[in-house]
């Protein structure tokens, strides 16, 4: 029962402890392509070192840059979709969606190996409409 509820965001759950959150905003300096700022937030200073954080952010930005790039494969994908009356979108994933899966996998791995042991949790930005990356500080109670 608990597992089912957990997998559906928005459904009522039992009381949870407070979490403090840090939001990493988008970096729009190069246009509307998805890219996140990699400046180190001061709230995380005591928990994680700058280099680790920056390498995580850079890797995520790399994945998104790869997703946003227009290349031969995206062109072929578009042409094929057009020819098949776009029915191909029902059967296969687009290039961008595959990249989002990679991002999700990378974040899960980083959480497991690096961030959770330090009491942090990165939330996949896809849950925030690709607007922010949310980092929850798990053992820090929020203000009531």
């Amino acid at each position, binding site marked *: 029962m608990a597992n089912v509820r957990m997998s559906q965001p928005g459904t009522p*759950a039992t009381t949870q402890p407070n979490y403090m959150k840090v*939001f990493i905003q988008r970096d729009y300096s190069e246009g509307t392509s998805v890219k996140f700022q990699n400046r180190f937030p001061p709230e995380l200073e005591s928990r994680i070192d700058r280099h680790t954080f920056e390498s995580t952010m850079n890797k995520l930005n790399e994945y998104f840059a790869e*997703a946003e790039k227009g290349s031969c494969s995206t062109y072929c994908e578009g042409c094929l979709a057009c020819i098949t009356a*776009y029915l191909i979108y029902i059967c296969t994933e687009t290039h961008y969606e595959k990249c989002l899966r990679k991002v999700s996998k990378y974040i899960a791995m980083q959480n497991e190996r690096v961030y959770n042991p330090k009491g942090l949790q990165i939330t996949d930005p*896809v*849950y*925030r409409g690709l607007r922010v990356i949310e980092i929850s500080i798990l053992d820090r109670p*929020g203000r009531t």
Partner: protein
Amino acid sequence: MPKCDVKTRYIPATFAWTLLLSTTFLFFWYPCRQFYIHRHPWVPAYQAVITFFVIANFTLATFMDPGVIPKAPPDEDREDEFRAPLYKNAEINGITVRMKWCVTCKFYRPPRCSHCSVCNHCIETFDHHCPWVNNCIGRRNYRFFFFFLISLSVHMLSIFSLSLVYVLQKEKDKLTEVEPIVAMILMAIVTLLAIPIFGLTGFHMVLVSRGRTTNEQVTGKFKGGYNPFSRGCWNNCCYTQCGPQYPSLLKPQKYVARRSNKENQSISTITNDGGPGGGGGDAAGSGRRHMPTGGPGSQQQQQQQQQQQQALNQGGGIYDNNRHTQVKTYMDHGNGHGIRTVGSSHYSKLTEL
């Protein structure tokens, strides 16, 4: 929303579909069937291909998610909305662009994003709300709308010219029969619609080459200035038509990486006895302590720890209601106004989209 509003929304789209399907059908039924299919069979085939593209693009422009940005959930930065500045600046390729706070969606609108009052959502790279497709045109479906306009223009031109050829080759005394009259009616309809459709197609061709949206063109955002979103004419055209298809953000669960049960068990957390310095986090640590090594066969009292473990395992944004959260937004100096701190709030339900 009053009932009559909902109904009037569908009228232009219904009219457009009816007109398209009926004129196409009439063309195939009368001139094609009587004349072309015997003399020039390539004509119906060619016309069928064009019709196929018109309908496919029209369908997608109508039914595809235009690039809706889901509303911010309650545990994001919201407390300061009454004191927050209305605009936030961002520098893009040397030009300062203003981002406006969206009162409905509760976030600063990304550049090129606009809120559509008809659809009641912020749309990524908002072009316009098209009443003929009863949908917004945004980042995800702009190319389908553009291809629809082009294919419709070709479709109209070919119907007009083929109907004209048919009428001209008919003997003068047979011009009062049904088929030539239908052909002439089709020509008249196409002539009437030619100016708006071709005009719109030409307008969008210019927009695509300049890398602008209808919204930006009409509001004169980059009038006489440099457009920071333009990548050059050729690249603009390529990116609009051949760029990657942006994903829909309405159901983010489908992009979560699938993890096996085995991986769920392999978290190595440093378990202390739930003390404040317990590196793995209290939630995971205490969960580990009590949970059996099997699958998630939870006992009643382990539910809470297990929920937390599950949240950590999946690494996704699983939000629980009734959770007190304190939120703090980190912003860069050049792109914001410094850190805003927010008190915690008790939220009852997340907005489900």
